């Protein structure tokens, strides 16, 4: 069962100025992180339950906590998956979705089944031979509502990925 009370309580504790400004001792900072982390799990269950009820479909919902560092095992490994966006604002929002994927081409459909333009952007890494592709597409989400986009990998096509390496070499030579 889902529960947002632990996250509420962790957030309440983190109102303390130590947590906001970083004036806590290292051990205390780690405890703040622990409380947040333990509160997040049951909140994800709560959100999953709400989404299942709203969409009428029970799924294994996945939350990619490491999206900001381009890590999301589901989008990186699955041949097809769904992207559900919930908009907490009281107006329609256009949001650019950005997900780490495996090197390929993709077919993205909006909630009405229409094809959505997408790009695969290769993100350079510190390692010379490693590049991380990210799928980018624009999603529209209604006010205080959600949209479900479906993503399918197209394996038989050559990826139309721009090659940053070829460009960067020219700059390096300057």
């Amino acid at each position: 069962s889902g529960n947002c009370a632990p996250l509420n309580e962790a957030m309440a504790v983190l109102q303390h100025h130590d947590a906001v400004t970083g004036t806590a001792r290292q051990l205390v900072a780690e405890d703040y992180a622990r409380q947040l982390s333990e509160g997040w799990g049951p909140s994800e269950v709560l959100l999953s339950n709400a989404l299942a009820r709203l969409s009428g479909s029970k799924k294994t919902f996945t939350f990619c906590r490491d999206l900001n560092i381009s890590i999301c095992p589901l989008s990186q490994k699955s041949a097809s998956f769904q992207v559900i966006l919930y908009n907490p604002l009281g107006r329609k929002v256009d949001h650019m979705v950005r997900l780490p994927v495996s090197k390929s081409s993709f077919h993205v459909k909006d909630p009405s089944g229409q094809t959505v333009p997408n790009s695969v952007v290769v993100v350079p890494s510190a390692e010379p031979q490693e590049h991380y592709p990210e799928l980018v597409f624009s999603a529209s989400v209604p006010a205080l509502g959600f949209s479900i986009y479906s993503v399918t990998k197209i394996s038989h096509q050559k990826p139309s990925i721009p090659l940053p390496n070829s460009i960067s070499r020219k700059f390096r030579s300057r």
Partner: protein
Amino acid sequence: FRVLAIENEYIRATFNPDTGFLTEIRNKDKNLLLPVNQSFFWYGASSGDLESWQTSGAYIFRPEGRKPYPVSHYAQIRLVKTPLVQELHQNFSAWCSQVVRLYQGQRHLELEWTVGPIPVGEGWGKEVISRFDTPLKTNGLFYTDSNGREILQRKRDYRPTWELDLWEPVAGNYYPVNTRIYIKDRNMQLTVLTDRSQGGSSLGNGSLELMVHRRLVKDDGRGLQEPLKENGSGLVARGRHLVLLDRVGEAAAGHRLLAEKEVLAPQVVLAPDGGALYHPQ
């Protein structure tokens, strides 16, 4: 490449091909052009001096000098252009990089910075800033939000209710920035929205800076008894600055809506294909 730029239907950002730094932002929609030099710098943390024993620490920001050091004089760059997004990847050093990004249909420039682990092996604490230098005639005025709602006018080296004798010209002009900071002249306004609370200031006319990360080697003697120095090699921080260039009279509508969208961004949840019908009972 004589001209290095990324652009969409509303914004064009131009970079110096030799240094890789941002040099100019153009709002194509409103025909506004502003030379903007953006780069990263760091203040050396004070470990006390003849004036005061006070060191820079978790509570106290006290740089040892007025002028910050550039992280680098040039950035290694990579350009990525697709129909939906154009990006310039800038690598300033082993511990400081940034992606300047423009999505199709977006009216702001997105700067995604990654800073850390800050090296302190040589015994110097560092406080890293992102600084925007423009020719805007700001007369010492800049604007920050105090609590995410009210924007307050700040004046350099000045307090509205007492006569200020400022001994710390950098720290004494730093203010909290919870969601945004901006500078303006009679025509144009440059607004930077943050994705988290940061310290910010304008230490010169037309200049605007935000502190993005700090790592210090000494305790500031305010009760913590620990330097602000993470275990191991230190933390990597990644965040975003959203930059808007607009006419003064129209800027508020833009940054208010964008800040709402940033703070209450859509929640993204993934699910494998398939699934069973859900029955509430």
